[in-house]
């Protein structure tokens, strides 16, 4: 943990925050991924051994937010909007432009949204206070989230499942299932025979 908190290859003049824990063999392409990070949780982000985050990954983590990323998980470019908990399992593959959110931050009540806009200080980059209760998002082990998909608050994606490109997932995905579309629907189960179907 006494390693330097900057990255020698980084184009962005940032640091990896103190409450971000990196296991061995973790690759973080740029500290720009933490430019929206403001969590005060003592263990706010944990990247497991062999996990990697690339250019588009953004840890948009509020004051009490916490994100855990499993072993060898690959976050090619996801925006993680987190006020409570986002769990990403081992070997998960998260494609580009994915959005994982455990909160909408703003209320569905339009008067409350007006209040939030009024309270926003000039030049502020974030909402002062989240107006809604977050609902944790869990991305299971060995899952694969296709590009441009959006995982909405409270959703659990079961182990081994696949979310097709451009899907919007508003409810839980069972294990070993392929879902796709907006809203995401079940396409089929993943059978063991899929090993033979490749190529």
């Amino acid at each position, binding site marked *: 943990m006494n390693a330097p908190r900057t990255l020698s290859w980084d184009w962005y003049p940032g640091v990896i925050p103190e409450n971000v824990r990196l296991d061995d063999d973790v690759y973080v392409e740029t500290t720009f991924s933490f430019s929206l990070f403001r969590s005060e949780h003592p263990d706010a982000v944990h990247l497991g051994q062999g996990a990697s985050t690339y250019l588009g990954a953004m840890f948009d983590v509020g004051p009490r937010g916490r994100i855990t990323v499993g072993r060898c998980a*690959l976050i090619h470019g996801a925006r993680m909007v987190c006020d409570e908990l986002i769990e990403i399992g081992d*070997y998960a*593959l998260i494609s580009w432009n994915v959005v994982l959110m455990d909160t909408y931050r703003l209320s569905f009540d339009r008067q409350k949204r007006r209040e939030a806009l009024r309270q926003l200080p000039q030049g502020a980059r974030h909402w002062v206070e989240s107006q809604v209760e977050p609902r944790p998002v869990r991305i299971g082990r060995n899952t694969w989230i296709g590009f441009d998909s959006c995982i909405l608050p409270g959703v659990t994606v079961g*182990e081994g499942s696949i979310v097709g490109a451009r899907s919007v997932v508003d409810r839980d995905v069972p294990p070993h299932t*392929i879902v796709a579309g907006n809203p995401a629907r079940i396409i089929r189960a*993943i059978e063991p025979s899929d090993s033979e179907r*490749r190529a």
Partner: protein
Amino acid sequence: VVIGWNTTIADTDFHPIDPAERIADAIACSPMGKGRPRPVVARKRVVIEDDVWIGPNAVILKGVRIGAGSVIEAGALVTRDIPAGSRVVGNPAQVVGEVT
């Protein structure tokens, strides 16, 4: 052919469908996988025939043939072959008419 901005055309699945192979791929793609070969990933050619017009933000997935003169509207996600002269909308994309 006209293709709008931010359109994605992919002739590959990028990763295996099979969960066990996907674990192998995740390891091969990770910083721990230096030099390790990646599993075989399904690919299939994409053909976009003459005079097709693809709108902005559309997605054309692996194995799709888009017939001559078809119009793929903005944001459509095309997973299946499209007959010539079709107008296509939505996610997943559906043929909603013909191009006149």
